[in-house]
């Protein structure tokens, strides 16, 4: 719902890092986006393409790696991944005492610059 402000944060961080490393242009920005981060990649790309105009990231592409939802079950000591956006029970033993350890990432991993 707030992809524009997230896109703006990505742009700000990338431009700061690019200048810090003494480069002039951003070619791409690699991201890790959790499946339950609340961010729709399609909307993020749309927002980024608009706000990057007239910046040193004008030609930059966002490369998004989607991170699945990952849980840990203390009952069967299993780490598991789910395809859906929700974990309702441990897929191995059906236990309800799981913890969710992945799927909310919203990270910049790398930028490609010249």
């Amino acid at each position, binding site marked *: 719902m707030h992809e524009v402000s997230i896109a703006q944060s990505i742009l700000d961080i990338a431009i700061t890092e690019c200048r810090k*490393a003494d480069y002039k242009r951003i070619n791409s920005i690699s991201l890790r986006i959790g499946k339950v981060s609340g961010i729709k990649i399609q909307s993020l790309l749309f927002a980024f393409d608009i706000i990057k105009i007239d910046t040193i990231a004008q030609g930059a592409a966002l490369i998004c790696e989607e991170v699945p939802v990952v849980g840990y079950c203390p009952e069967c000591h299993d780490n598991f991944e789910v395809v859906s956006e929700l974990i309702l029970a441990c897929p191995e033993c059906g236990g*309800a005492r799981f913890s969710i350890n992945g799927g909310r990432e919203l990270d910049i991993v790398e930028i490609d610059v010249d």
Partner: protein
Amino acid sequence: MKVKVVRRILEANEKIAEENRKLFEEKEIIAINLMSGPGAGKTSLLVRTIEALKDKVSIGVIEGDITGTDDAERINALDVPVVQINTEGACHLDADMIREALDEIPLNDISLLFIENVGNLVCPAEFNVGENMKAMVLSISEGDDKPLKYPLMFQESGVLIINKTDLLPYTDVDMEKIKKNALSLNPGLRIFEISCRTGTGLPDWTNYLTTMLAI
């Protein structure tokens, strides 16, 4: 040329949230981020809670709304310090808005701060503001399918307050299903069933707060 960055996109918010958290700790304030969809009864819950506790606890309130001051006026009538934030379109409160609002709250005089978030079951759950606890309100008329439709808020909250229980006889909503769905997402969730209109169940909630504040 590749440059490793490895930074959280929301780190600017997290940094300010941490500053807010430290300020609450220093001032010995428990801050509760109160979230729900529009109309679930956050403000009514605050009014009832303040009425029940204001002789025992000094309470402050930050009201978040997209526009308007109705909620702050309802709280102000109870004679507790209140600040209204208007997000002007933004779908949630963030840490920086809270930091600014804290300038207007007499932090030395309060021990419990309620931050009433913008009515929205999605985005508020994604932004820490430095609170000690997230609490959410779900009203009976919203339906028993909501935990599974808006899982993040149920997972992030320490407390679920099910409000408007007086409406149960007039709906097809299954109270046990709400609780089962919510607990399947968050087994540690503490659940209170209340009606702000009739007052049923409110003492369980206010006793929980006074125990938490150790008074």
